[in-house]
């Protein structure tokens, strides 16, 4: 008896904080998304109407929502593989027995992860300034005409993708590095004796051993990238021509610029459903592959 009640005392603070400041708002958000809470309701609650699934219906018919979704998917589909490639590449380099000063390189490559998004986003905006930015200056040396990173709708999102990759690759690099170091050396020895090339060793030993970690890291990165917000907010304000407007940016605009809280909540929940579906699918695909091997 004593043991049971003691446990609940231990759990109480965490459950209380999580319950009040996380679970409760999430449920309230669901309720909010079924109303048309807006400025008028803010002034006078009698102006609030229950609208059922109307917000969702209206969103799914709004071109702006699909555009925001498209931009977010573009960011995820291009950014995640790029980020994982960079992380894996860096991890492989660090893991190589031929690399020197490993601790230094590891720290240096990880440094961008620790920095504040807002601060480095400000730096990025200046680096990619079409006229005075370092990037176009360097590109100019290679004979490439200045790219309008901030103004051309086709180049703004790639710039943000580069930013996300630069900022985050170190995180996954550490995890993949740990995974690489866990692979027993004997496997590589045996393969070398058998005459396998470096590439074959990579394909048949490294990748399969890393598969579960890669999957997990992939899911985490996908989930994080769906929540793209700070970069468009600081660097491009959603532009140019809303080409960097992500789903969360749309939610922020709807909710805190125009105070259409009902619509904004619906946006948040649609995003959640989508994220859940995608990560669940990835998880299941990963499990299926594992059961095959």
């Amino acid at each position: 008896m004593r043991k049971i009640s003691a446990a609940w005392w231990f759990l109480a603070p965490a459950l209380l904080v999580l319950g009040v400041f996380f679970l409760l708002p999430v449920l309230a958000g669901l309720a909010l998304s079924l109303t048309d809470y807006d400025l008028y309701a803010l002034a006078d609650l009698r102006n609030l109407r229950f609208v059922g699934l109307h917000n969702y219906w209206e969103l799914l018919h709004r071109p702006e929502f699909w555009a925001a979704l498209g931009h977010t998917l573009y960011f995820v589909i291009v950014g995640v593989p790029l980020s994982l490639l960079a992380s894996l590449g860096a991890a492989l380099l660090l893991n190589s027995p031929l690399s020197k000063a490993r601790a230094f390189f590891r720290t240096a490559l990880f440094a961008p992860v620790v920095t504040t998004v807002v601060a480095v986003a400000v730096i990025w905006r200046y680096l990619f300034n079409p006229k005075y930015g370092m990037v176009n200056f360097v590109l100019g040396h290679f004979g490439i005409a200045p790219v309008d990173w901030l103004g051309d709708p086709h180049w703004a999102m790639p710039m943000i993708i580069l930013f996300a990759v630069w900022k985050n690759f170190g995180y996954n690099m550490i995890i993949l590095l740990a995974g690489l170091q866990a692979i027993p050396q004997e496997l590589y020895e045996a393969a070398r004796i058998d005459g396998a090339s470096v590439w074959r060793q990579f394909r048949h030993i490294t990748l399969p051993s890393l598969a579960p970690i890669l999957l997990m890291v992939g899911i985490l990165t996908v989930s994080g990238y769906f929540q793209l917000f700070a970069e468009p907010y600081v660097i491009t304000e959603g532009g140019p021509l809303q080409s960097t407007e992500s789903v969360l940016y749309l939610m922020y605009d709807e909710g805190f610029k125009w105070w259409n809280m009902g619509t904004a909540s619906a946006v948040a929940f649609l995003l959640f459903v989508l994220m859940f579906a995608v990560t669940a699918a990835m998880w299941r695909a990963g499990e299926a592959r594992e059961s095959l091997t």
Partner: protein
Amino acid sequence: MRVARAIVPALLAACTLLAACGSHPEDSRTLEFWTIGREGEAVVKLLPEFEREHPGIHVRVQQIPLTAAHEKLLTAYAGDSLPDVTQIGNTWIPEFAALHALEPLDALAAASRDVREPDYFPAVWATNRFDGALYGVPWYVDTRLLFYRVDLLRDAGFDAPPRDWAEWRRQMDAIRAHSGGKRWGALLPTNEYDQLLALALQQHEPLLRDGARYGNFRSAGFKRALAFYVDLYRRGDVPPYTNIQVSNPWEEFGRGAFVFYLSGPWNIGEFRKRLPPSQQDAWSTAPLPGPDGPGDSVAYGSSVAIPVASHDKRAAWLLIEYLSRPLVQQRFYELLGDLPPRRSVWESPALKQDPKLHAFRDQLERMQPAPPVPEWEQIVNMMQDIAARAVAGQLTIDQAAAQMDVQADTILAKRRWVLQNQAR
């Protein structure tokens, strides 16, 4: 570890204490005053005299950046954390008045010696009224007109600024030709709505119809304005840049990257400050050209208002009165270049004899307010988003106008319901 355990409740107590402190005014009547943009830096210099006149009132100024001001004010309203007195754009007054966020000031203004309504430009005073009551006192008046490089215009063969659209277009074409395509005619950032709005307000048709219940962007007048606007980019007279790409327009103006700049009075002070003395005679201002002659412009401006949630409305009104005094307004103008909303202040030598101000004095008599609906900020942003796509060639004029109407009608749906409800 026991110490660690003691720290936690202590910190919790400290947090709640600080939280409590955070939401209550301090002892000696601190007046929280929010300003938008650069006004904060300038008004701080005017405050010592106010505080000398009213010992016991201390004014604390907080500056909000212009691009975030609207959402900051709304969020503050929603979070019950509006200040004691605030600057507010006059196009937002209908919105905040509809929210019952602002204190009606009719009685105070009628009894005041400093705030005298007849002295104010009527168009600007009118923008502060909503539903029959006064919700703000104009602080400075603002409009949009042409800043231009006199020397570069003369090089292209013109001695005077344009008076109508056709002449403006001609001049910009000549500028392009004369500079071999290196110089733009004008800079009109595509993510700012003021420029298109000014052109649109020059038309006879209103932007919203039916008691501001539906969009009216498909009217012939608006389409004409939109066509003229989009055409400027298509002809190559205006670059399709946002204000993020041209983050330093003053330097570009000084370097002669473009000749015309559709902007407002604060830039008089900015150009005077940022351009070298040798270039001060090279630029001037001109009233906005209209379709068939000098045109109207937007009746912008900022007012000072007292939120209903203000802790010290009496002190807030004292500050408003102080800022409304002609002498103080004159000093404010000298600090920043913001235009006074009172005719008497315009008679002072500093304003009357400044050649760069003549165009403004002229334009102030030809101003049109934006439609006074709470949703206006959202509608005008939507308008510019769609216009920018038309500029980029993604939409035709007719398509853009149709989309604007569809969106405006959606945005105004709740308003229609509320009005219907109230009528019952």
